[in-house]
Structures are given as structure tokens and as C-alpha cells.
């Protein structure tokens, strides 16, 4: 696809993202926001994973985004969308700290360090009730909260931006350097790449992106609480979506987030009242998906597309 066509496509998607929420029934808004916030953290997680940085700290980005947006709005009383700036700034700053503190840690050690840092944030949020409201939580100023339609449009537009960033990064010359860092940072360094700079760059970008998802969720629920804002479940879905959709690919997080939402809704509706059973079914589908589609949904598409081409060549 040529760049101009991609830009046009992005423009169309952006228009759709802004207009469509105003035409849909409310239940679809709920789906759209859940899909969009999941997609934001999934893209963000995938960016780091692509460079060999497996994060277990995405709930930290999310929580920081949520709290900084909420506190900022409560203090300044500025319109809701302005709070995206402190959210992104704090997410980026946390990303920087993460890269800086973990130094050259890799693999499991890096993952555990990020987990520890995110958990530390949750504990801190509990320990300073004067600022965060502690375990009791904190309400966002009600009259600042946007309508469902507005928030949905805003969030969908964010996802278009996130996917666009991930796409253009995958076309840039930085892509191969990041991709090669996954194999060996020493080997990339021998090609004149400063791995520390790339690490910091990608965690800062990833952190800012994930924080926007937290910001949206804060406005959506209108209420903040450390247990929910720094929930480990966030970190887990941030990695299941790309895994399910297709790890390291641009489209993977998109398909993965959609699929996750569909599976979770279907199992929830189907098993309705027996909630535990719905979760179990959800888990089983995920495990099967990951086991039988190692390349995720994207990998499956690629395989299907390749097969007819091969047989045509045979003719």
C-alpha cells in the first residue's frame, strides 16, 4: 500500500470513529469503549514486545493515566480532553523510569522488574489517601464528564492514532533495529545502534499510549480506585490480545482485541447467570486459540492466503 493510500484510509477511519458513535445504540458504545481501551494497551504492549521487552507493568501505565487525568481535571476544572496531556506525560515518565531502572535487564528479569514497579504504584496509591482517596476511591468532577457518544468518538480516534503510529513505525528504519534488539542487544550495538536509546524511546512511547487508555476508563467510570486502576487483569489482557491476534504485527492487536471482546461477550451472555462458568469458557477459548493458532489470527489469515497461491503456481 502506498503511503498516500494509507493516509486516506486513516482519514476515513478517523471520520468513522468520530461519527459512528452518534448513530449507535448505547450498548454498542459500551462495547466500543471496551474494545478501544483494550486496543490501546494491546498496541502499546505489542510495541514493547516487538523490541524484546516483555512488560508485566502495563497496569502501572493505565493507573497512572487514570489518576493523573482525574486529579488534573478535579483541580483545574478544565474540559475532559485536556487531561490527556498529563496522562500521557506521566505514562511517558513512568516508561522512562522503567527503561532507566531496568538498565540492561532482559526477558524474565525485565518482566518481573516491571511487575514490581507497577505493584509499587498500586501500593503508593493506597498509601496517600490525601491525594488519591486511598482505598475509598475518588470521584471525577461530574459536570466535566463527557457524554457517552463524545467519549466513544474520542477513544476511537485515539485508537486510530495508536494503530497509525504502530504502522508507520513498522515501515520506518527503526523497525529492524527494534526487531533485532529482540534477538540480541549486543549484536545490534555492533551495528552502531545505541540500544539504551531505543529502549527508552519505545518504553516512553508505549507508556504514553497505555496511559491514554487509563485516562479514558477514568472518564468512562467517573470513579477511581487503586485496586481497579492498577488491576493486574489489565496487564494480562494487554498481552493476550496481541497474542491472540498475532504477536509483533500491526493488525494483531486489532483483531485480538475484537476477538477477545466477542468471546467474552458471547461466553457471558451464553452462560449468563453462572458467572464462573462463563469465565471458564472464556479461558478455555483463549487457551485453545493460543495453542492452535501460534501466529494468532493474523498468522491464520496469512496461511489461508498463501495456500491458494501455492496451488495456482502448481497449475
Amino acid at each position, binding site marked *: 500500500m502506498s503511503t498516500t493510500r494509507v493516509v486516506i484510509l486513516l482519514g476515513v477511519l478517523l471520520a468513522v470513529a468520530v461519527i459512528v458513535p452518534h448513530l449507535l445504540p448505547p450498548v454498542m458504545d459500551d462495547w466500543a469503549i471496551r474494545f478501544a481501551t483494550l486496543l490501546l494497551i494491546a498496541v502499546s504492549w505489542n510495541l514493547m514486545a516487538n523490541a524484546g521487552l516483555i512488560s508485566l507493568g502495563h497496569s502501572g501505565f493505565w493507573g497512572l493515566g487514570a489518576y493523573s487525568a482525574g486529579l488534573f481535571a478535579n483541580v483545574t476544572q478544565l474540559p475532559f480532553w485536556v487531561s490527556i496531556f498529563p496522562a500521557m506525560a506521566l505514562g511517558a515518565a513512568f516508561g522512562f523510569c522503567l527503561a532507566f531502572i531496568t538498565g540492561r535487564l532482559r526477558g524474565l528479569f525485565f518482566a518481573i522488574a516491571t511487575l514490581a514497579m507497577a505493584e509499587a504504584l498500586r501500593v503508593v496509591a493506597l498509601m496517600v489517601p490525601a491525594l488519591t482517596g486511598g482505598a475509598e476511591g475518588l470521584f471525577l468532577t461530574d459536570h466535566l464528564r463527557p457524554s457517552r457518544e463524545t467519549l466513544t468518538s474520542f477513544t476511537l480516534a485515539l485508537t486510530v492514532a495508536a494503530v497509525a503510529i504502530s504502522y508507520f513505525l513498522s515501515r520506518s528504519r527503526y523497525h529492524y533495529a527494534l526487531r533485532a534488539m529482540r534477538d540480541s542487544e549486543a549484536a*545490534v550495538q555492533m551495528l552502531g545502534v545505541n540500544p539504551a536509546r531505543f529502549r527508552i524511546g519505545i518504553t516512553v512511547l508505549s507508556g504514553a499510549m497505555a496511559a491514554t487508555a487509563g485516562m479514558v476508563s477514568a472518564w468512562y467510570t467517573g470513579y477511581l480506585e487503586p485496586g481497579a486502576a492498577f488491576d493486574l487483569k489489565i496487564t494480562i489482557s494487554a498481552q493476550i490480545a496481541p497474542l491472540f491476534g498475532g504477536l509483533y504485527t500491526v493488525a494483531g492487536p486489532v483483531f485480538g482485541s475484537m476477538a477477545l471482546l466477542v468471546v467474552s461477550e458471547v461466553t457471558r451472555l451464553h452462560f449468563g447467570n453462572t458467572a464462573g462458568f462463563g469465565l471458564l469458557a472464556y479461558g478455555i477459548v483463549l487457551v485453545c486459540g493460543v495453542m492452535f493458532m501460534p501466529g494468532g489470527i493474523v498468522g491464520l489469515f496469512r496461511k489461508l492466503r498463501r495456500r491458494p497461491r501455492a496451488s495456482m503456481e502448481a497449475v
Partner: protein
Amino acid sequence: MSPAASPPVLELQGGFTGYGDSVVVNDVSISVGQGEVVCLLGANGAGKTTLMRAITGLLPLMQGRLVFRGEDISKMPAHDRVRAGICLSPEGRQVFPELTVMENLVLGGFNKRAREFRQRNLDRVFDLFPRLSERKTQAAGLMSGGEQQMLAIARALMGEPKLLALDEPSLGLAPKIVLTVFDAIKTIAQSGITILLVEQNTRAALTVAERGYVLSAGKIVHEGSARELMQSEMIQKAFIGAIYDGDKKRVTRRERRLAALAGKADHA
């Protein structure tokens, strides 16, 4: 002939380096002149790769001074040394297995100085290794050991080297492929690029090198012109003997590593 005839491109004076507390390279001084091909010979575990790591910056010097084209680079980080012009084809090749040949090459030319020469350098390496131009879109990990070695050298060349450092390019290759690779090294040398070549394959190394050093247990025990080294009894004793007669442990270490490398290539 004195190496100081032309000002050296690279000069290491009294270099010490190692891992943690263990000093592996012990008071080593070497110099490489402009346009020269210098080889570094030595048995397994002599410290050749360790010395190479200190020169390319992957290991810090504990002591000593490293000067590259008139500039003291002893404290310069590895990625900046690449920009300065030291490009390495590492031991065991270390190509990026999941990237294609072309992507590996483009990455080799990633540093700022090399970027503007990318097209010229691509033409040059495809000229040098026609095999690679036939396999541009193949994943590097799916290529044979010899092809991967060619790719590793080509990738280093893409970095527009002022000093090309080659660590055991013959490692684990069939004799016929060794010939091909060394022919290419000869061509590179003729194009005027300065080369520092680490080898255990003395015979092959001395066909391209003008001068050499012999490293044993982390010290330089001998140096001289290629001809002198070829005839030297000392070399036979210093490490050819060590490989084939005495030290059984070293033999197995190398064999194990070769097997591991071969296994890795098959696997990928």
C-alpha cells in the same frame, strides 16, 4: 618492515581486559597500519575474541590505551565506535535469523555515516557475494553456515568500515567454503579496507594477512610478517600443538561449540 611506516589506524598499548575479576588479555600491544591486513592467531581460549570485544567496545579495557585514527577511544561506547568506523563480523556470525538477508544488510548500514553509501555498499557486497543477491528475501536463519558467514561479513561491510574486524570467519565451515570466504576477504583487502582478522586456521589466515600476532594465554608471544609466521616452529608449538596433541579439554570445548553452532543453523 616496521608497522610504524604509516601511522597506524588502530593501536592498542598495554591493554588488559577480562570478565569480572579474571584477567584474560594481559598487557597486549598491537597496531594495525592503514590498508594492512593483520591477523591474530592463537589456540582455543587464548583470548582472541576477548581482545576483539575490547577493541570493538563490548568489553571495557581494565588498563591500557586504545587509539583509532589518532583519537583515544578507550572509553568510547561500542555503538559510537561503529560510527567511528570499526565494524565487526562477530564470532559465530550472529546474523538475525528471522530477518531476511536484505534486512540484515540494511541494518548493517544503520549507522549515520554509512547511511548515505547504502546503495553503493549493497552493490559492492552483492558483487562480492553473488550468493547473497540470489537470496535477498530469504530468512537469514534458513541459510547454510557458509552463507551466514558471508552475510555476517557483508553486514559489517555495509557499515562503511575504516577497520573491518573479522572474528574467525572460517569457524565451522567446510574447506571449500573457507576458500570462498577467504577469496572474498582478499578482494576486500585489495579494495583498500584495513582488516584485523582473528583466526585459528593459520594457513588460511596467512594467505591473506601481511603480518600477524600470536596470542597465547592472553599474551602476545610472537609477532612477525606472514612469511616469518608461516615458517615459525614457534607457531606449531604455540597452538597447533595445543590443539592436536596436548590439551584434550580444549579440543572438546571447540568441538562442542562447533556442534552447537551447526545444530543452531539446522534448527533455525
